[in-house]
């Protein structure tokens, strides 16, 4: 049975070696190998004494384990090739199913990459000791791999059960928000007197690192090196026992998952609560507002995005504040609105094919768009205002209130327009709500949309912000408040104007959006561009993702590589040193040109800028050429019919 599952997994893997799956595989392999490189670089080839390497290795294994635990939540990376549901009707025990699935997942890219990383243990063993520790390190590596796979499955399974209520949605999004924010501003915490703190904690930290199971493999190797064979075997046996226990726990979770009907553990019964203040919203627009508000409060995936935005932005400014730099605090609310806009900018995509209900109701497009905008504001605006006032107060930066209010008002107006506009112009089809679970696993964010919506919002906020900022700079209080008032005007303008654009689009190409929704979320990405766009007559334009997916893997690599290299050459290696040099020098940091002899500095900056522009130009032109090709293909298909 286990062997059959492994063969199924390998067959699926073989079948996926084509089209865009191959592209994705390539990128995940690149990402994984980069992580492996860092593991070797810091773990075993660092130039510290062996003892330091040992601690570092322990830390790195801890990070790998955390990656396995939270990876599926953060990146929707649960192994979807073999789902336990596929074996629901096969007469096998859940224990056997757990063993089979775990064995099958050994034959995948993530497991392979992790194996490469854990082989550092063998290198470490060879470095520190002799043949004995090297021999022990081999089973230790395998057990380490099994351990991370099993712990990932168990934690993912637990989270899967957790992310099904409003409270657990808050909890899990708090964790995810804190982690994501840490990657951005968490390093401020490192600016604390870390040496001193580390000195105080090192004993405890070292003990903890040694005690946690992620470190048992290293302990086993160390014990073997010292000739403490009983200890070495004890650690290995402990790991085996732990894997066995985790498998047992996972089997229990699997049994629950497969026997609670189709992922819906309980009957949800609601009393209609139409007696609330929302009765004030009347007419078709009111109907949509009330319907949407209910959707926000009951769809934990949807509200989860808002919780995520809240915690992410709060942590984003709180980390530096804890480190003694409270300057970011007043912008928490604006960041929250921007993140929430980025995360929820696929409103129509999230509703899936339910769009048909608006399409069959005559003249309902306006009500649908406006209602969604108002409901979005009802969800986000109150929190944003509380955050604005609270963070200004906590930071003790009263002077920043007009500026903070300006950014909050403008961001709210802009966001309420952008979320509907983006979701009709750049619809990302998702699995229909009744076919997906409540959790984030089935509901990944599109990073590109997220970033572009946030950037667009930043641009929209800029004009009133500049006005208030001018008032602040010139010390004119009245001008600051004029700017704040202007931000309300801008917000209303954005709400109306962007909303109207969305209404027009929905009126013009509602059927195409429905078609896109129905046919793009099927797993036929290679053929789907012309198919869906064929009917669209240019009403639905190919998105960046669609064009990228149609490039060959090598072209994708070349394009992204050139884009990145170009950006790095142009900005941090070209323009930034240029500015530093014009200002008469300063921190050399990693700016290559500034390390050059002075007569070479200008030429190097010139080369960097020109090279960067060339590389970016190449990437952009390659992308546009492909876009042209895709558009032509669409036109050809349309012409044929």
């Amino acid at each position: 049975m286990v062997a059959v599952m492994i063969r199924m997994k390998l067959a699926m893997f073989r079948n996926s070696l084509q089209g865009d799956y191959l592209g994705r595989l390539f990128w995940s392999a690149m990402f994984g190998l980069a992580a492996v490189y860092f593991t070797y670089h810091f773990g075993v080839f660092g130039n510290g004494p062996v003892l330091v390497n040992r601690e570092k290795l322990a830390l790195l294994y801890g990070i790998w384990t955390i990656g396995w635990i939270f990876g599926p939540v953060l990146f929707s990376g649960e192994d979807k090739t073999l789902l336990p549901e596929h074996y629901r009707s096969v007469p096998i025990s859940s224990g056997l199913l757990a063993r089979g699935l775990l064995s099958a997942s050994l034959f995948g890219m993530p497991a392979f990459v992790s194996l490469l990383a854990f082989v550092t243990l063998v290198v470490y063993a060879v470095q520190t000791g002799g043949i004995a520790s090297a021999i022990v390190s081999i089973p230790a590596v395998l057990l380490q791999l099994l351990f991370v796979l099993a712990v990932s499955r168990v934690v993912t399974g637990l989270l899967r059960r957790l992310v099904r209520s409003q409270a657990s949605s808050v909890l899990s999004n708090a964790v995810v928000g804190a982690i994501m924010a840490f990657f951005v501003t968490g390093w401020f915490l490192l600016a604390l007197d870390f040496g001193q703190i580390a000195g105080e904690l090192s004993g405890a930290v070292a003990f903890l690192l040694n005690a946690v199971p992620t470190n048992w493999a290293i302990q086993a190797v160390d014990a073997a090196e010292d000739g403490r064979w009983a200890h070495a075997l004890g650690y290995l046996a402990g790991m085996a026992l732990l894997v066995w226990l985790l498998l047992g726990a996972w089997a229990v979770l699997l049994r629950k998952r497969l026997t609670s009907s189709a992922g819906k553990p309980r009957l949800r019964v609601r009393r209609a609560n139409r007696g609330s203040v929302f009765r004030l919203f009347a007419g078709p627009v009111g109907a949509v507002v009330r319907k949407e508000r209910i959707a926000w409060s009951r769809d934990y995936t949807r509200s989860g995005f808002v919780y995520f935005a809240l915690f992410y932005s709060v942590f984003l400014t709180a980390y530096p504040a804890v480190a003694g730099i409270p300057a970011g605090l007043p912008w928490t609310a604006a960041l929250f609105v921007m993140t929430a806009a980025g995360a929820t900018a696929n409103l129509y995509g999230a509703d899936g094919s339910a769009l048909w209900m608006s399409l069959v109701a005559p003249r309902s497009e306006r009500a649908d768009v406006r209602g969604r905008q108002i409901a979005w504001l009802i969800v986000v605006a109150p929190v944003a205002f509380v955050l604005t006032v609270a963070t200004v107060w906590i930071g003790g930066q009263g002077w920043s209130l007009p500026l903070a209010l300006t950014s909050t008002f403008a961001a709210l107006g802009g966001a309420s327009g952008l979320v509907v506009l983006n979701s009709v112009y750049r619809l990302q089809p998702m699995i229909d709500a009744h076919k997906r679970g409540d959790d984030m696993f089935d509901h990944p964010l599109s990073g590109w949309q997220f970033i572009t919506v946030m950037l667009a919002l930043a641009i929209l906020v800029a004009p009133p912000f500049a006005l208030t900022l001018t008032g602040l700079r010139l010390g004119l209080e009245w001008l600051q408040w004029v700017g704040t008032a202007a931000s309300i005007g801008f917000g209303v303008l954005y709400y109306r104007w962007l909303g109207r654009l969305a209404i027009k689009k929905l009126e013009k190409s509602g059927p195409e959006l429905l078609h896109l929704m129905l046919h793009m979320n099927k797993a036929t990405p290679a053929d789907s561009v012309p198919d869906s766009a064929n009917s669209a007559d240019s009403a639905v334009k190919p998105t960046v993702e669609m064009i990228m997916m149609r490039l060959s893997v090598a072209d994708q690599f070349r394009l992204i590589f050139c884009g990145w290299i170009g950006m790095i050459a142009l900005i941090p290696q070209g323009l930034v040193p240029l500015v530093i040099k014009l200002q008469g020098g300063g921190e050399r940091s990693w700016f290559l040109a500034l390390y050059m002899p002075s007569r070479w500095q200008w030429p190097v900056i010139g080369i960097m800028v020109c090279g960067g522009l060339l590389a970016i130009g190449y990437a952009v032109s390659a992308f546009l050429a492909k876009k042209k090709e895709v558009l032509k293909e669409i036109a050809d298909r349309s012409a044929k019919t």
Partner: protein
Amino acid sequence: MTFNKQTADGQAPALQLQSLRKTFGKNAAVDGIDLVVPAGSFFGLVGPNGAGKTTTLSMATGLLRPDAGKALVFGTDIWRSPAQAKAMIGVLPDGLSMPERLTGKELLFYTGLLRGLDEQTVNKRADDLLGVLDLADTEDRFVSDYSTGMRKKIALAVSLLHRPNLLVLDEPFEAVDPVSASVIKSLLRKFVESGGSVVFSSHVMETVEQLCDSLAVVAKGKIKAAGTMYEVCAGKPLEERFIELVGGPIGGKEELTWLLS
């Protein structure tokens, strides 16, 4: 097939499709369909799986833009004057999502308001429909928790709520239990008797034979036969006539000896 804009009694047909065409990639899902559904008729659209029934009905109801051709609802082009045409029809699509986190009752309530009905009327109609369709006990459950048959029934209620003149139903009886199916059948019959028109697709011949006065047989995106039940059947049982028109192998017992011995 004739394309008189007016039928014999001078009333525009409930639904008229003219040279409708839709191609997905290289596959012509609907390949020039012409069809007239007279007002007041109970019309069946039958065909094997993948014949183009859903594509045809989607184009006729404003859910899928045709590559070519027209769809007229009581003489109004649904793609030229969508608001006017859509006000006259009730649509039950097959297998599409709904606002899943609403309860059945709420779904009807908000859809009614969206259609411009007042709250009192919506509440009354919603209660009536939930009662008749045997959904009253489960009106407080989320739509996402409904079974396939219950989803069909609540979507049917949505299509009836605004009192349309023409009902366009895609596989309305699929997965519906026999008792509910019988209720729906008698409801639809009464709807037709009171002057409404019904078009529905199905691949169950008995249902079509039982309900419809006229029908069209579709296969591979084309109309194979259309007209009154009498005309299409030409004296044979519908099922036999259907297989004749659509073509297909009969039998196949010999190959499965291990199963059938």
